[in-house]
């Protein structure tokens, strides 16, 4: 059977560059965090940090930052311009969301990559907002004087550090859930690489996630 394109090329390019950039930013961010921990009992082990010392961690973080930000902005512009977000992430009403959360809790939530379910839509919109918030707070941590106009969103240098940390935490939580869901429904993985899947509807598309 002829396969159809379900993930446009730019979405796939964005996605995998983003995954690499995010991992780099988190691991180098932990290195930076360790130089002055926000929470006394929380220090990241050397084995999961990147950059070898604070200076190296900063170099990685502020290099990967460009990859992360440019990639994300291209995705957002194209996602809006091509109607990708409108088609795949919307409509998203509370009714559909509660219905799908309830279904998911009973392991009865159907999944197909052509048409994201409401839980997925909420997750994807949510993670994009979290990434933007992490970006904005990062700008204030980086340039608290020059970007003080952003302080009404994330506060001053000291509070922006907490917002930035919270963003990292939410991204980590997202990755755990997201990757776990891919492990549960591994048939979604190949299309995220090749872009193609069997046409919808298909038996395998309506399996239980």
């Amino acid at each position, binding site marked *: 059977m002829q396969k159809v394109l379900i993930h446009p090329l730019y979405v796939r390019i964005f996605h995998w*560059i983003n*995954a*690499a*950039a995010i*991992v*780099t930013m988190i*691991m*180098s961010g932990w290195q*930076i*965090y*360790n*130089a*002055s921990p926000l929470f006394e009992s929380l220090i990241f082990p*050397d*084995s*999961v*940090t*990147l*950059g*070898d*010392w*604070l*200076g*190296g961690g*900063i*170099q*990685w973080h*502020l*290099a*990967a930052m*460009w*990859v992360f930000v440019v990639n994300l902005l291209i995705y957002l512009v194209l996602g809006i311009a091509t109607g990708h977000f409108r088609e795949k992430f919307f409509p998203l009403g509370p009714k559909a969301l509660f219905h799908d959360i309830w279904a998911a809790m009973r392991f009865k939530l159907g999944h197909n990559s052509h048409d994201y379910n409401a839980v997925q839509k909420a997750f994807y919109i949510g993670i994009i907002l979290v990434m933007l918030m992490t970006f904005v707070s990062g700008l204030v941590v980086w*340039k*608290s*004087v*020059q*970007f*003080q106009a952003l302080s009404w969103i994330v506060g*001053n*240098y*000291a509070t922006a*550090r907490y917002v930035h940390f919270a963003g990292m935490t939410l991204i980590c939580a997202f990755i755990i859930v997201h990757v776990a869901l891919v492990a549960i429904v591994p048939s979604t993985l190949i299309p995220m690489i090749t872009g193609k899947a069997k046409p919808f509807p298909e038996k395998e598309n309506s399996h239980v996630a």
Partner: protein
Amino acid sequence: MLLKPNSSQKLLLPRTKQVKNIERRFFMGRALSFGALSMLAGCNVADDSKAQSILDAMSRWNDGVQEAIFGATNQLATTYTEADITDPFPFNAYYSEDKAPDVKEEGYKLELTGLVDKKAPWTLAALRALPQQSQITRHICVEGWSVIGKWAGVSFADFLHMVGADTKAKYVAFKCADDYYTTLDMASALHPQTILALTFRDQVLPRKYGFPMKLRIPIKLGFKNPKHIMSIEVTNEDRGGYWEDQGYNWFSGT
């Protein structure tokens, strides 16, 4: 300027640490992001120096971006009230407090070199006789902690003009009694909140905070605020810095 007292271990010997950890570490780092990112950059995963040169190039690129941002926004740092001042205010340097240089006022003269018309050295008394400017601002350390302090002294822009410095020169470089050194871009040196601080909280700047004087520049990270200044050079050569030469970003604006 750099070290939080209880985390000094971590930063005292960055190079040593780097060497020591280089094989043991990075495994995860390499496997995951290093590989992934350097793939994008088209470089060999196993090639450390290539990765380092990309990181160095990015750091220089970030210098340029910061210079552009600074030129475009040119904000004043937020000022605070007496009640906001951090007490006790931390000592911080690449050595412990008892190693802080003990500069004596008698015999001390601030040297001026490079592209400066009037190179006559300055005594503290002469500097105190100039108009003084005070500020309560946030000192942000590259490590991530920040504290609020009060400094007063001579406007650095006024001082540079007074001594006939060539303000078209690119850099102002500092040499300190503790062998510390750093270089600032001229635009930041001329910022209205950059001062040659002679006091801390209305008292003569104590030894632990940089006697006889410290450059207080709230639009830069702490390590760009040299203490125990012995000489100032106006120059078109980048003289680097104690931490900058080890890998901290050169511009390090806030």
